[in-house]
């Protein structure tokens, strides 16, 4: 659960999505479902990227604005926005993104380690880079995104 990438698996599948003008992907084993956006109840004293909580069949789950988490402007309200429901370390949460594009099948060796860049707050939540037809997709570490069990930068 520490990392989004399980090094022992040769073929990996990722759910790719787009938000804030950038492509991201998340290990398919962490994705539970993809839902239409529905209004959330905001949480007091929460960080910028926490939009609020939503009712998922009786569970109250927090919704994170992925763009805001990576220091991009908050995702503008749009009926076509979707919520990627994911699970990490026993917690269920939702990621608000603009659209889900495809499922990527990648070999382990095709995932590059992200290079060191100058202090970017979201950098440590990216564990790998996949080259796709449209460009590149950033593999996100869910634990680091929500601030639980986040990986220290190497």
């Amino acid at each position, binding site marked *: 659960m520490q990392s989004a990438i399980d090094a022992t698996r040769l073929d990996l599948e990722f759910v790719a999505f787009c938000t804030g003008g950038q492509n991201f992907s998340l290990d398919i084993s962490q994705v539970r479902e993809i839902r239409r956006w529905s209004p959330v*109840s*905001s*949480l007091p004293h929460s960080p910028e990227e926490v939009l609020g909580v939503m009712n998922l069949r009786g569970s*109250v789950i927090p919704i994170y604005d992925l763009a805001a988490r990576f220091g991009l402007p908050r995702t503008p309200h749009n009926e076509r926005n979707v919520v990627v429901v994911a699970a990490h370390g026993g917690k269920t*949460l939702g990621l608000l993104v603009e659209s889900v594009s495809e499922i990527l099948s990648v070999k382990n060796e095709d995932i590059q380690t992200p290079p060191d860049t100058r202090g970017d707050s979201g950098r440590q939540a990216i564990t790998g880079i996949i080259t796709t037809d449209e460009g590149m997709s950033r593999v996100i570490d869910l634990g680091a995104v929500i601030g639980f*069990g986040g990986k220290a930068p190497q």
Partner: protein
Amino acid sequence: MGSQNSIRDMFFEESEELLEQLIDGLGLIAAGQADDETVNAVFRSVHSIKGGAGAFGFSALVDFSHRFETVLDAVRSHRLEASAGIVLTLQRSADFLTDLVERARRGDTETPEQADSFLAALDQCLAGASAPDGLVASAFGFAAQPILLDLGEPATEVFEIRFKPFGRLYSNGHNPAMIVASLADLGETTTHLQTEGMGELADFDPAAPCLGWLIELETSAPETKVREVFDFVDGLCDLHISTRLDEAAAPEPHPQVAPASSGATQASSSPPQSVRPTAEPADNTPKSTLRVELDRVDRLINAVGELIINQSMIAQRLQELRLATDADVVTHVEDYRLLARDIQEAVMAIRAQPVKPLFQRMSRIVREAEEATGKKVKLQTSGEGTEVDKTVVERLSDPLTHMVRNSVDHGLEKPEARLAAGKDPIGTITLSAVHRSGMVVITIRDDGAGLNRPKILEIARSKGLVAPDLELADSEIDALLFMPGFSTADRVSNLSGRGVGLDVVKNAVSTLGGRITIATTPGQGTEFIISLPLTLAVLDGMVVSVAGQTLVIPITSILETIVPEESDVHQFGASDQLLFVRGRYVPLVDVAEGLGLSGGLRDPRKCQVVLMETEEHALVALMVDRIHDQRQVVIKGLESNYGTVPGVSAATVLGDGQVALILDPDVLARNVSPAANSGLLRISEGMPHAVSH
């Protein structure tokens, strides 16, 4: 391996019940309300624990329960009188047995050091027993090889055992052949099949047992040993045990007609089993129960919660359709609502448990506290049958232990002081539980000297908890007891008084959604009153809206709702406002601001106000945009998927599927005082990421 573990788990579950029965029975014996059956039941509890422990190789447990059982056996056969001293030893031994079971559960098979002193205490009991024949044999006869001590001739006797199983013996899985085999272990047996019960072929019922056995047993073991073989089929069979000798001596031997009364050696402690009619055992059997994993029940509770939310969604949609109120569908949905409530109540009842085991544990705490303080204490309990949610019962154990110790240590005076005050030198602590308006109220009362308020104030001042010149009302002084770091003991005792105590109790109670209050009368005693919700799954709340969000305020602390008059709102300093209610000035708290939902103060004259009492008994007026209605909501934790949020205790899902946060009004109210203000800020700075680290 798995099944072995589950059998092991079952042993511990059963042990828990057996220990409960044991402690219960000893309580009755101590109170002098025991009959022979109570003593038997106590004996059987220990015996069954020993049996189970043996099967799993918990040798420390077997050794101790064996010795314990020996003493109990002496009591049940009236060779040892249950004097106060003996009963106390038995009770302490039961406490120790509880510890041993707990150790075994944790996989700790070492024999704890104290074992020797407990064993010695038990032996001491036996030393005082009158020692007729059989005592030594019965005391040590359980060892694998019977040790025949030089008590003279171990005379052999011939027992005639008439044994006719009822149907339930078979359906409970017992096997007569095994019983006969166990008898054969005791000595020479000759077994005769008895077919008198068999009727005409035409009337033959294949499901009804008709066979019995006459077993002649020649053994040197005492009758108690012989009866022991039948311990586990007690009430499941027709059993007569008599000795040849007796029959010869008995004036009118009618073994067939009234065998039960024939034997002089018929232990007077065992009830005459033979006269028990066949139909009766059904009434005697305890209510049948089912062991279910808690997870399954919780899943059911969740699903029912969803069902109720779903029902209110449908009801809300129907309302929007503006159908006639007598339309079929409307009445059906109303029925649906009632059914859903019924199911919810029934499911909640599964989790409900009596507080009895909790109270029982307290009698042990009292005994230990007596020893540590040298005070004499009598514990009275009432309302043990009161049921509360399982989690509440479990989480109440530590706080209650603290409270009881505290009452013995600080509440009650020393015997000399009590005598001087004209009181019974033995102090009384009363524990009671009662259901009151949807809450369970647990009271711990001592008949001690009452709170020494001047001393409390003095200590609080010396510890810098209260400004030296501040005048406090009586209730405010009492509330100082709950402040962290407060301890009234002059010196640290090993019992309580490390300054961690009542504040911890208070925290534990408030996490359960409850409140704790003190009432004290000088010279007559102090009473701690804990009120708790019956369940942690639902709460009664007032639905309000604040800054466009729907929120729920728990109803327990709400006093009233007010639409304030303009003239009642007063500016107080630069940013605070006070509301004049019933002759008092109460701070006005903007909920939206407290939760950081909107910037800037809004106009209190356009708001509605919920008047609340905080845990510190201070009044506070919460300002909301609108008060909607009052309803029962299903509590959904935020911690499992997110973390804790200051000012918010949990969330719920409303009829429209939207999440509404449940406010923690005490945290919001604390925001009022400048000192606590910084506290809230400190909490919120690290939120929510700090939760995980």
